[in-house]
């Protein structure tokens, strides 16, 4: 321990700390300046950026003693002492450049370093400067355009927020405004789970298998239990209740007892006085394994001799065979003049939310004064936070499911467990399954202390479910004049070791596998399989991102064969009002696909349009794709949300209201959407409505934040609860008025029974302008033209944020991202090995909003959160084809393989980056 002296945010700091500490750790833990976030501890993500003597540095690997005597500045310095917001903070709000907010302090501090330097040099800040300065400052939510515009504005330039044209707003609904929680995020005061510190809190770590398939012979934790500072070591023997969890099927052990099914499996958990001690304890846990043969391929998994992941299951490694059929494909293909038959491969993909998973368990009866402290945590308005029951603080997409699953493991009733939603640093589907929630609660009860379970980035990569890797064979037939006659497809989805949401995700992949087209004859078989790979689950696009790649690649090939314009071919077949979907659903309203296509086509063809041309050694080309995505759970699942709205008269501010619902905000802008619905109904400004999300004791269940459902389902619930409050208000004199409304989405039909499988679909068309360096095979997306049919734009600012972010996420899917596993062992074990798109990859985006209102939607709105992440990748590979004549069949595009194909004058590339084997041969139907 030595003396460290620095100036932090203008004030002298003098602390005695270990010389091995990092600056981020001192700032966050010792100085409690938790505005500085940490995301990777690898100097990769940039969210921990602070200024040291005015220079941006990544504080996660910056030795604290390197800052000896230095002037350190963090986000907390920007708006101190009620001095109002810094220009950057205001600009980030104005431009909607804040979504989940975990990267926001880092982006702002990096930008401040740039603006201060440019101001000192007397130079004007340009977009090029901003891209260079933020090259390694990642954001997973925005598409960076809003960030660039915000920084330009903050530098004193007159740059208005980019807002697509939308319908005339209502009084409150339909107006662009920052997400209400964004203010705290730009100030660094928004509290993510890891920002909480409870008196007496312990730190937890998990012993992972790190081998993909094995029998457990024995587990010996005795040495770990004896390590000084260790307060508890738990194994499967210490799980009082159900030793399993799962959102759909309960097949995932809380702590493994007899078998390991993937490398991320948990064997034991430790709570100790510090993270370091907990980590040291893990090394003392002895597990004796008998390693088993590994199955790591979705198709090989169905071979009769394949090792079985869950031997007790009746269907071997088959998790589910999902079938869709319409008409007669034999007849359909007989009527076709042209048939395209191709097999595609998509990679396992990682959400890379920039906030790794973190849960804090607090034991029932916790009294902070026992540890000489108090805790200032979330509570319902006007109430003190209590911990009279087991409580879990977590940023989760499904708080009620977390509660119920934790209760089952703890052998408690659901009502005896409380989940409090903290600010979530991104989710994208990756925070639907249980991560450390149950473990933190078990350890809290075992130690009678609060326990924080924070995953490292590397652990996060290892453990949580990913986007399904898929192999898709697809055959598409059409008549000479371009009318689709038949689609046949067989899909294999790698579900990994546990069910997670595989069944639901792959059902969506299947039912969307003929695209947003009116096709009379369709047959699709999808096989979801268990393997020893990382589980696969929900990820923005939910299976449709994968099948869309195959559908839209085939459509362009078909257009080529037919000599038809790709836009025209899609127009001829697009779903419209009066069409019937592949599952037999008659489209009665809100089908904006043709308008999306027309808007994109017009924008793309403005000026001197060509599909491709040369610029020096680069070849440029446009490519186009369309897509669609259901709103809501559908398929007969009960889809409901309950909202509570309370209104009261404030002597100074007039009528105020609070909306309470357990739905999740992960950066998408839900609080603003719900506030505007309540405000509209109550006739008050949106700013007069506060929104409390996700405390299971005070917020009724809004259902899972998945399936692009919250604006629609929770939105309707809030709207109707607010309407009930509004009705009661005239009679209320001085007292608060509270109303709840349980909203049920229109009934849907299970797959295979015909009728309405979904309450609605949203539609999208996107065109990508790509440049291909013909000397290197490098691909850059220069521009995206997009049109999204969202029913109704509720908040154009946050809507545009979802669109831009979704597009850039899908650019990553096409060009940069592949979570690589080798025989069940993740090669992608550090963030440096998984590159999401950075600011250098972000194109300019021209965005059009199409508003074909949905009569059952709140103000006509339907879901759209996943929609932008669906057609971008085939739009890009279609552009690559138009530029080079090479059809890319595996993602992500590998420049090495692409250049080889270009030089060999080949017509296709079978290998994506990270693929070691050719695409396996797939038989249609694939009876096993």
């Amino acid at each position, binding site marked *: 321990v030595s003396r460290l002296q620095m100036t932090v945010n203008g004030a002298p700091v003098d602390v005695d700390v270990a010389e091995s500490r990092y600056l981020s750790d001192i700032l966050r833990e010792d100085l409690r300046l938790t505005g500085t976030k940490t995301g990777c501890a*690898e100097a990769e993500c940039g969210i921990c950026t602070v200024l040291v003597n005015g220079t941006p540095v990544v504080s996660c*690997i910056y030795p604290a*003693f390197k800052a000896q005597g230095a002037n350190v500045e963090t986000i907390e310095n920007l708006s101190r002492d009620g001095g109002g917001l810094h220009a950057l903070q205001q600009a980030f709000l104005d431009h909607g450049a804040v979504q989940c907010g975990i990267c926001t302090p880092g982006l702002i501090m990096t930008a401040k370093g740039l603006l201060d330097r440019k101001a000192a040099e007397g130079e004007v800040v340009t977009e090029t400067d901003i891209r260079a300065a933020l090259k390694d400052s990642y954001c997973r939510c925005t598409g960076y355009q809003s960030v660039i515009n915000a920084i330009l504005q903050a530098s004193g330039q007159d740059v208005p927020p980019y807002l697509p044209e939308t319908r005339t707003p209502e009084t409150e609904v339909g107006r662009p405004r920052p997400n209400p929680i964004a203010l705290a995020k730009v100030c660094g005061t928004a509290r993510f789970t890891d920002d909480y510190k409870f008196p007496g809190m312990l730190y937890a770590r998990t012993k992972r298998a790190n081998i993909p398939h094995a029998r457990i012979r024995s587990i010996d934790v005795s040495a770990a239990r004896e390590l000084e500072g260790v307060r508890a070591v738990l194994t499967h023997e210490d799980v009082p209740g159900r030793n399993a969890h799962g959102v759909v099927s309960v097949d995932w052990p809380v702590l493994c007892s007899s078998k390991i099914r993937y490398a991320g499996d948990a064997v034991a958990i430790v709570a100790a006085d510090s993270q*370091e001690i907990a980590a040291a304890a893990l090394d003392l846990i002895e597990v004796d394994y008998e390693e088993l043969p590994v199955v790591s391929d979705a198709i090989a998994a169905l071979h009769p001799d394949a090792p079985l992941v869950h031997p007790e299951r009746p269907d071997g490694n088959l998790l589910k065979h999902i079938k869709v059929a319409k008409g007669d494909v034999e007849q359909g293909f007989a009527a076709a003049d042209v048939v395209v038959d191709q097999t595609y491969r998509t990679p396992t993909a990682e959400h890379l939310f920039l906030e790794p998973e973190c849960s804090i368990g607090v034991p029932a009866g916790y009294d902070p004064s026992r540890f000489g402290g108090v805790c200032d945590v979330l509570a319902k308005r006007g109430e003190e936070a209590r911990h009279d029951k087991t409580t879990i603080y977590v940023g989760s997409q499904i708080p009620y499911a977390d509660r119920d699953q934790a209760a089952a493991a703890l052998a408690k009733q659901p009502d005896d467990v409380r989940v409090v939603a903290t600010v979530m640093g991104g989710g994208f589907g990756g925070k639907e399954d249980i991560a450390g929630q149950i473990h933190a609660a078990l350890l809290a009860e075992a130690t009678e202390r609060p326990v924080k379970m924070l995953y490292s980035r590397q652990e996060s990569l290892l453990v949580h479910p990913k986007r399904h890797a898929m192999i898709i064979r697809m055959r598409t037939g059409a008549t000479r004049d371009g009318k689709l006659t038949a689609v046949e497809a067989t899909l294999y989805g790698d579900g990994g070791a546990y069910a997670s949401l595989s069944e639901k995700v792959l059902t969506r992949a299947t039912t969307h596998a003929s695209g947003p087209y009116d096709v009379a004859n369709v047959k699709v078989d999808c096989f979801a399989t268990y393997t020893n790979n990382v589980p696969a689950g929900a990820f923005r696009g939910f299976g449709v991102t994968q099948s869309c790649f195959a559908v839209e690649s085939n459509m362009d090939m078909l257009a080529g064969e037919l000599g038809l314009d790709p836009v025209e071919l899609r127009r001829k077949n697009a779903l419209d009002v009066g069409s019937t979907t592949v599952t037999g659903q008659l489209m009665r309203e809100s089908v904006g696909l043709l308008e999306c296509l027309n808007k994109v086509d017009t924008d793309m063809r403005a000026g001197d349009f060509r599909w491709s041309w040369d610029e020096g050694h680069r070849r440029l080309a446009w490519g186009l794709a369309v897509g669609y995505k259901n709103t809501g759970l559908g398929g007969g699942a009960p889809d409901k949300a309950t909202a509570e709205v309370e209104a009261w008269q404030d002597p100074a501010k007039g009528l105020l209201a609070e909306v309470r619902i357990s739905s999740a905000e992960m950066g998408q802008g839900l609080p603003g959407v719900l506030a505007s619905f309540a405000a509209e109904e109550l006739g008050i400004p949106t700013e007069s409505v506060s929104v409390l999300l996700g405390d299971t004791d005070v917020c009724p269940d809004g259902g899972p934040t998945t399936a692009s459902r919250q604006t629609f389902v929770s939105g309707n619930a809030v709207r109707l609860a607010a309407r009930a409050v509004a009705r009661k208000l005239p009679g209320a004199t001085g007292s608060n008025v509270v109303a709840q409304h349980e909203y049920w989405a229109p009934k849907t039909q299970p797959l295979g029974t015909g009728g309405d499988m979904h309450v609605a679909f949203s539609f999208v068309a996107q065109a990508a302008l790509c440049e291909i360096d013909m000397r290197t095979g490098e691909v850059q997306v220069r521009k995206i033209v997009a049109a999204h049919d969202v029913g109704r734009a509720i908040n154009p600012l946050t809507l545009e944020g979802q669109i831009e972010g979704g597009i850039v996420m899908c650019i990553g899917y096409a060009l940069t991202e592949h979570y690589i596993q080798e025989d069940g062992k993740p090669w992608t074990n550090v963030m440096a090995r*998984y590159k999401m798109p950075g600011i250098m990859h972000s194109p300019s985006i021209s965005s059009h909003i199409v508003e074909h209102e949905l009569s059952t939607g709140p103000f006509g709105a339907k879901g759209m959160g996943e929609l932008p992440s669906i057609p971008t990748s085939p739009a890009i590979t279609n552009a690559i084809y138009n530029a080079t004549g090479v059809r890319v069949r595996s993602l992500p595009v590998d420049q090495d393989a692409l250049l*080889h194909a270009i030089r060999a004058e080949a017509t296709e590339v079978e290998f994506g*980056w990270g693929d070691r084997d050719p695409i396996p041969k797939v038989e249609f139907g694939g009876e096993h």
Partner: protein
Amino acid sequence: LTAAWKKYYAPETVAAALQILRRHDGRARVIGGGTDLLVEARRGLRRPFEAIVDATRISGLGTIEENGEYIVIGCAVSHTTIVNDARIVRFGTCLSEGCGVIGGPQVRNVGTLAGNVAHALPAGDGTIGLLALGGEVEIAGSDGTRWVPTKDTFAGPGRSIIDRHREILTRLRFKRTADNEGSAFHRVMRPQGLCLPIISMAARLQMEGNIVKAAGISMGPVGPVPWFAEPAADVLVGKAATQAQFEKAAEVALENITLRTSKYRATEEYREAMICTYLPIILTAAARRAGAEL
């Protein structure tokens, strides 16, 4: 999560730094920014060190100086400082370009050229730039200091000849390119994971009209250590600077190395194609910067 090091020293003199190294006898590590070493340490890829010796506070080594025909860079100088230094941009262009693509801006703000060279990776971008310029490094030890050509400092992949028990890299220098000299650098990357270059190359040319008088070429990774490609450079000397001659240099380079396919990074064929494509391009740029009219 065990501490990656115990003691953190930031000595203000070379003598003090050397004394600390001797005291820890090989169990201390010198860092500049620490942006490579500490990431590895934090990931637990390295055994914990007894001590870190931060070389960036050594007095007199934090600046870029001109000394006669040399530009001398102290070991505490960051990549960002090098990239922004007008003298290096002009008289050591390929070094400036190489340092400019290392890591991201935050890493370049603290990472040093000295650290890049001492780390001795097969394709350190700053190292490749310095190598083409014929740069040298100053190594200080208890017996005094010595200047060693950069190309002679590599002992193997990630291993420098600097004796970590008793030596420290204190300064780097290169001769300013004259009016008839120019240099250029290029790196080929991929946008996916694995932030390692597919190929980095630098070249320096001295011209007389359109005739190459002297040449220096460097590249990596083409072997265990960065390669000072003398055979390729020799092909150019005394010859006219033409595309054909530059392509010949690439051919000769390829004859002298064994390229490898490295998993998830590049195939042997791709590396070969990139050398054939970009060596002529950077040679052309260097020749133009040297005043040749190509």
